[in-house]
C-alpha cells in the first residue's frame, strides 16, 4: 500500500503540530507514509468562492503530487471533501479520478481502512466536547446528522471512545455549524462570529474542558472567538489525542 500524507495549507502554516501528530500516529500504526514535498493546497478557498478557474492551478499541483498513491490521507474533512467532490477545475484524466477516489480524511482512514479502535498509548483524562464539522457529517458521512431520520453513529467518537480517561459531554446543539465556512468567516463576519460564540458557549455550558475536532479550520475559528471572549476552553485536533497528547 502506498500512502501519502496531505497536509492542508493552513495546518502547514499555523498548526504544524497537527500534521506532525498525523504523521506520527500513522507511523505508530505501522504505516510507511510518503509526504510529497511539492504539495501546496487542495484549491478549496478559490473554488468555494466560485473562482473555478483560479482553483485550477492548485488543483493541478495537488493531482500531480498525489498521483499513483493507494491512499491520500489528510487531517481535514473539509479539504478531503473538496478533493472528492469538487476537484473539477482540471481535466478529469484517469489519474485525477484515481487521486480523487483515493482521498481519505484521517478519521475515515483510521476507522474504515485500518479499522483500528484502540490507541493504547493514548490517554486524555479530560471532559471533551466533540465537534464534528459539517463536512465530516453531511458531506463525508462520518457521523449521523440529527436532522436525518437515521440510526446514530459517529466514527470520530468510535475512535476516541477507548482513549484512557476521556469523558464526553454533549452540547445542546451537537451538529449545528460553528460558522467558519471558509471566506464566509470574513465576508459575513458578524454572523460567523455569533455562530462561533454560540458554539463555544454551548460546549462550555455542557462542561467541556476541551473541544476536539477532525477539522482544524473549525477549531481555529472557535478558538479565535473563545480567546477574544476570554472563555475557558482549549482546542485540540483528534490526531493529537490519538497520537498520545496529554492536553
Amino acid at each position, binding site marked *: 500500500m502506498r500512502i501519502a500524507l496531505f*497536509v492542508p*495549507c*493552513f*495546518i*502547514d502554516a*499555523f*498548526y*504544524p503540530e497537527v*500534521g*506532525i501528530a498525523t*504523521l506520527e500516529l500513522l507511523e505508530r500504526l505501522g504505516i510507511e507514509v510518503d*509526504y510529497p*514535498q511539492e*504539495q*501546496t*493546497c487542495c484549491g478549496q*478557498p*478559490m473554488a*468555494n*468562492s*466560485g*473562482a*473555478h478557474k*483560479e482553483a*485550477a*492551478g*492548485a488543483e493541478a*499541483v495537488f493531482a500531480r503530487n498525489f498521483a499513483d498513491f493507494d491512499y491520500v490521507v489528510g487531517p481535514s474533512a473539509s479539504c478531503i471533501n473538496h478533493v472528492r467532490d*469538487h476537484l473539477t477545475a482540471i481535466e478529469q484524466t484517469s489519474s485525477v479520478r484515481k487521486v480523487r477516489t483515493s482521498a481519505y480524511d484521517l478519521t475515515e482512514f483510521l476507522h474504515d481502512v485500518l479499522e483500528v479502535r484502540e490507541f493504547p498509548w493514548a490517554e486524555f483524562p479530560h471532559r471533551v466536547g466533540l465537534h464534528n464539522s*459539517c463536512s465530516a457529517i*453531511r*458531506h463525508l458521512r462520518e457521523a449521523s*446528522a440529527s*436532522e*436525518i*431520520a*437515521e440510526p446514530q453513529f459517529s466514527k470520530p467518537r468510535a475512535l476516541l471512545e477507548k482513549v484512557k480517561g476521556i469523558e464526553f459531554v454533549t452540547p445542546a446543539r451537537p451538529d449545528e*455549524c460553528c*460558522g*467558519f*465556512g*471558509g*471566506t*464566509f*468567516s*470574513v*465576508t*459575513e*463576519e*458578524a*454572523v460567523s*462570529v*455569533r*455562530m*462561533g460564540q454560540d458554539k463555544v458557549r454551548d460546549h462550555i455550558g455542557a462542561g467541556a474542558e476541551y473541544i476536539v475536532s477532525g477539522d482544524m479550520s473549525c477549531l481555529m*475559528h472557535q*478558538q*479565535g472567538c473563545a*480567546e*477574544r471572549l476570554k472563555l475557558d476552553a482549549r482546542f485540540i485536533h483528534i490526531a493529537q489525542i490519538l497520537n498520545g497528547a496529554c492536553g
Partner: protein
Amino acid sequence: MSKARIDHAKAASAFIEKTDHVALHDKRLWDLRLKRDAQAHGIAEWETLRDLASSIKEHTLSHLADYVEQFVDVAEENGVVVHFAATAEEHNAIVHQLLSERGMTTLIKSKSMLTDECAMRDYLEPRGITVMETDLGERIQQLDNQDPSHMVVPAVHKLRADVADLFGRTIGTDPANHDIHYLAESQRMHTRPYFVREKTAGMTGCNFAVAETGTVVVCTNEGNADLSANVPPLHIASIGIEKLIPRISDLGVFVRMLSRSALGSPITQYTSHFRAPRPGTEMHFILVDHGRSERLAMEEFWYSLKCIRCGACMNTCPVYRRSGGLSYGGTYSGPIGAIINPTFDLRRYSALPFASTLNGSCTSVCPVQINIHEQIYKWREVITARHQVPFVKKEVLKVAGRLLANPTLYRKALASLGGALRRLPNFVLYNPLNIWGRQRDLPDTPKETFHQWYLKNRKRPQ
C-alpha cells in the same frame, strides 16, 4: 433594470446587534427545527417519503406542460374559470379586472408568497382596491410595510413589543399592552368585519394543484383561507405553475410532510380542497409563470421548483436564524431564497449564495430533497463567471491561485514572512486581518511550518 445590490452581511450585522431579537429569533426557529426532527424520527418511512416527494415533483416538472393542460381542462369542466399570467404584471391586472368588473373594492386574502412576489398589493391599492391580509403574520408585515421575513411565520423577527407598538399606531390597540393574546384577539376582531363585507372578493394561494381533479389545496392554521374562499361570492386562487402534482393520492405524501417539515405538527389546522364553486358563486384560478418556465430550463437550477414552501430550510439554517429574513431583501429568504432570488435579478441578489457556510443542513431537511447547498455552490460559480462577486476582490483570488499553483514560489513566500508570520495567508481574507480580528484572536505563529519541520526531521532522499 437592476435595483441596488442587497448587502446581506450589513443587514445581518445590524440584526445581530439587536440582542433580544436575534436571541428569540434563533431560539424560536431552532425549536421548530427540533419539532420537525421529532416528527421525522417518529415516522419509520420518513426518508422514503422524501424520496417519493422528490420523485413525484421531478416527474411532474419534467411533464409540466401536460399536467398544466390536464389541470386546466378538468378545472374548466368543474365550472372554474382559468386565467394565464405570463408575468407578475399580467397576474395583477387580471385580479384587478376581475374585481373592477364586478364592482368589488375589497380583497380579503390568505397567505400567498406568489402574490408577494408579484407585488400585488402595490398594484391594487393605488387602483382603489383595499387588500386585507388575514394571516396574522402577513397582516403585521402589511401594516408595517415590510416583506414577510419567513414563508410560514412572516413576522417571526418581531417581538411582542414591536407588534404592540405597530398595532397601536395602525389599528388602534393600546400600545402599552404587550399581551400576545390581546394582540391576536385585536387582529381577529379588526379583521373579521372584512370577511362579511359587501363588494368583497376572496383570494387564496395554492399549496398543491392536483391535475387529476382540478383541485387547489390550501393549508392554513388560522382558517383564514376557508373564510376568504367561503364567504365572498368570488374566490380567486393564485397558482404558481410549479404547484402541480399529478393525483389526489399524491397528497398522501405531500400533506403528510408539509406541516411536519414546517412546524413539527402532523398537519395544519385546515387542509382545504377547492374543486368547484358554490352554487351561485364564482371560482377563478390564475396560473402564473413569472420566470418559472425560464427556471425550468436551467439545467442546474430547476430543482428549486420542487419547493413546497415549508420553510424547513430557513428553520435549520444557522445563518438565517441569526440574520433574519429581511436581510435577504426579497420575497424568499434563507437557503431557498439564496437559490431562487438570483434567477429574478442576478446582480441584486449576488450576495445571497455567499451568505452560507455550505453546511448542507438545508438539503437534509428539505422534504422534496432540493440539493440546496449544491445549488448555492453552483450559483457562486455563475456569479463569479459573470463578474458579479460583491466583495472578494478577484485579483486577490487570482494572486492566491497563482501562488498556490507554484510550489517553489509559495514556499518562498511563506519563508519570507519568517518569524513575523502573523498573517493568515492572503487567500483566506480579502481584507487584511482587520476583519478576522474584529471579534476573534489570531492563531499563534509557530516557529516553523510542517514543511520545514519535515525537511529537518524526516527528509528522505528524493
